[in-house]
């Protein structure tokens, strides 16, 4: 059962990801990216990480992608004429394939240590309780730094997007 779901979700994820980079219209491209994020959230549920799956849907697909669509519609872009040289296209795809082959070789040759020490059950692993407990104890400093980073992002976006700046 899990195998069937994994195959289904991964096939859909790869299909939607391919459509993201193959679409001419940027709007369709971003909408396919939203679909990709949804299928990835389904894969996270399979990996017993329901909290991360919820975050993926609410923050990524819900907030970040809405920002994408908002800017896209604000700019009112037509599908820009992309004078991409075929040579550049072939080179780009070749580089991506080489990267994939290198990753496959690394995966085959590097042994991944088996589970040692940590022995949490699958239900306990991704629960809000266990994640929250670690987030506010072990990872408290990175959590606070992340909030400062978001503050800097907000201020940066406002400063950049202000209409008339006196030089």
């Amino acid at each position, binding site marked *: 059962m899990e195998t069937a779901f994994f195959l289904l979700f991964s096939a859909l994820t790869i299909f939607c990801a391919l459509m993201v980079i193959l679409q001419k219209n940027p709007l369709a491209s971003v909408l396919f990216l939203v679909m990709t994020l949804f299928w990835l959230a389904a894969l996270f549920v399979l990996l017993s990480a329901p909290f991360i799956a919820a975050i993926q849907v609410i923050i990524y697909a819900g907030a970040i992608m809405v920002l994408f669509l908002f800017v896209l519609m604000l700019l009112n872009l037509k599908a820009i004429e992309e004078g*991409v040289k075929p040579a550049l296209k072939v080179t780009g795809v070749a580089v991506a394939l080489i990267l994939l082959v290198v990753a496959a070789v690394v995966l085959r040759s590097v042994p991944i240590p088996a589970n040692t020490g940590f022995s949490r059950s699958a239900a306990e692993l991704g629960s809000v309780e266990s994640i929250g407990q670690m987030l506010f104890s072990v990872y408290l400093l*990175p959590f606070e730094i992340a909030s400062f980073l978001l503050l800097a*992002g907000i201020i940066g976006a406002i400063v950049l997007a202000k209409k008339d700046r006196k030089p």
Partner: protein
Amino acid sequence: MVVSLNHYLVLSAILFSIGVAGVLTRKNAIIIFASIELMMNAVNLAFVAFARHWGDPGGQIFVFFVVAVAAAEVAVGLAIIVVLFRQKETVNIDRVNLMKW
């Protein structure tokens, strides 16, 4: 067939390669941005797969931080694209070679 860690890592590598191909072959700045998001999500998948493999929630917490960084990055990056469009009336990266030497 039992779904193992390797299956998820291969899927993650495929998604990352698709993102790299998108960055290298497209000229629309927004689609390049979307491809970068694709690569980030491929890495997130690998993190969650390792978290399950080792039974350690640390990987899932790292995904949390990656999402926070992605949110900040998208806010600033899209603001830059808006300013760029106002100045040049295009988001084709070939027309934007201000910093090219």
